[in-house]
């Protein structure tokens, strides 16, 4: 096929990414692996932190505005600044991936506090009332009613956080932290005179695929956790 003929490493067009990938397979897969856990783990950690914070914002109404506003402000800190400042804050090496993980956890928390608070508040009034009237303690109400019913709302937030993280991790690549972002730096460095597309295209495609895969994982998990929602739409 003529298309195959053009898939050479020297090909500087976007299609050159296939050739580029086979030539740098181990390196790229290594970056992909780093990229994956740097995208996913901070969301999990962020969720674990956001859950109690969101609960507090819900439980003590007066804390909602300050908590949600502060969380929102965190998101306005430019990521690159946070990546660079993180070693000073937590005392790590400048290129330690932990910096990125912690910074992205901060972003995830920023995104998820409001989502958790709103999700926990999404319990219909009559359901909340029935739960109280049946003698569920506050804790039982949270674990047995409010949290399960908040899953769809929280999951929607987690999807946003995961996808946002995939692109934020790439930014960290530009300062040398190993991940798919380095494909963009490489592509930029090789673009002498004319643009050299293969690593850049490969980076974009892998980032998109990774984001899709992680998103699918969250969606699948949510579906498993909320069989009752399928029943609703199925009836």
């Amino acid at each position: 096929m003529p298309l195959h003929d053009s898939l050479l490493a020297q090909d500087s067009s976007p299609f050159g990414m296939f050739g580029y990938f086979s030539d740098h397979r181990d390196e790229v897969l290594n970056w992909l692996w780093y990229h994956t856990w740097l995208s996913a783990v901070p969301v999990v950690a962020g969720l674990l932190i956001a859950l109690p914070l969101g609960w507090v914002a819900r439980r003590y109404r007066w804390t909602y505005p300050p908590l949600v506003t502060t969380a929102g402000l965190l998101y306005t800190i430019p990521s690159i600044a946070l990546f660079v400042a993180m070693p000073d804050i937590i005392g790590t090496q400048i290129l330690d991936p932990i910096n990125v993980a912690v910074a992205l956890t901060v972003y995830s928390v920023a995104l998820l506090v409001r989502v958790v608070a709103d999700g926990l508040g999404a319990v219909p009034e009559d359901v909340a009332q029935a739960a109280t009237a049946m003698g569920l303690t506050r804790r039982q109400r949270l674990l047995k009613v409010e949290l399960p019913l908040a899953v769809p709302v929280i999951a929607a937030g987690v999807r946003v956080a995961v996808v946002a993280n995939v692109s934020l991790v790439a930014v960290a690549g530009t300062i040398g932290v190993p991940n798919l972002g380095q494909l963009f730096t490489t592509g930029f460095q090789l673009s002498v005179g004319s643009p050299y597309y293969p690593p850049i295209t490969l980076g974009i495609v892998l980032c998109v695929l990774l984001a899709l895969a992680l998103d699918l994982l969250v969606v699948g998990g949510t579906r498993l956790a909320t069989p009752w929602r399928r029943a609703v739409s199925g009836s």
Partner: protein
Amino acid sequence: MIRFESVSKKYPDGTLAVDRLELVAPSGEITVLVGPSGCGKTTSLRMINRMIEPTSGRIWLDDRDTATVPTHELRRGIGYVIQHAGLFPHRTVVDNITTVPELLGTDKKQARRRALELMERVGLPAHFAKRYPAQLSGGQQQRVGVARALAADPPVMLMDEPFSAVDPVVRAQLQNEFLRLQGELGKTIVFVTHDIDEAIKLGDRVAVLQVGGHLAQLAPPAELLSDPADTFVAGFVGRDRGYRALGFAEAGLLPVRKEHAVRLGSGRGEAHDAAEDGWVLVTDAEDRPQGWLRTDRLAEAEPTGPVTAPELNLGGTLASETATLREALDSALSSPSGRGVIVDGAGRLLGTVTASEVLTRIEQQRAAADPPFTGDVGPGGAESEAS
């Protein structure tokens, strides 16, 4: 028994929702709290399980002051049914029903068995157990709500307008089944509604509350209709209370006259011959009345052939031989022939009565009862005078 002892609820904005309420809801009976919105009926109900804390006064559950019982413990011993059922959308029907037994640490298998038993009791097929609330109709959800409230077999049930969010047909059905269920279970029930007809139908005793949380009258429904305590109660109870009071008086032995009925499918000639004043009653093969046939126009339209179901007039209601005066009168008034159809327990035709015969019966009962007429004359009252 639930006893309100000078219970008041004043909200921070100064609204007095309940004003020194004194009320006893006797064990095994349905006490209905009824009144216009803002009368404090729901507030009063929720103070029983301490969803709302009284500002002053005490509420006793038998010999326990509810204020001394930990709230979650108190609530697990009180069934609670609300308007939209408030089922947990993420739990299946059976899991909804076993909520309280689960909290009480009842063995899981046993709780499920009891849940299935309750589903049958409230008229839900067993295969609904695995469904989610969103897959049920409003009426079915409310049945689950009732089953859930009964799951731990609490002696006391609180019901806050449980049947007002469903359509009138389903409501009447749920009300009837509720009465049947209460007949079997004998719970101590406090029932809140804004609908005086529902209050009168369901209550053993009805408490009429006035805006501002003031108890205007507490009485059995028949007494409420016949002897309202003041103009507020009289106005709230409504205009046709005289007629509705008949719903509490059993008709006893009515002077039922034999009715010459024809069966569906009989010849038109036969129908014509059996007719009286131009109407003939048509029954099925088991003597169950199906409707009235107007015979004076029969000949013109289609002179021959059998009597068929579509040409029947279905306007008349049926009254059973154990009917109340209201049902008997309604049967006569609604019948196109003016003859009210009386059936036996199996729905088979016994005969007919006219409105004037029922009215005579009413007057006989009034005369027999010591005036004022209280409406609760039993079948023994004036029965001997029946022809």
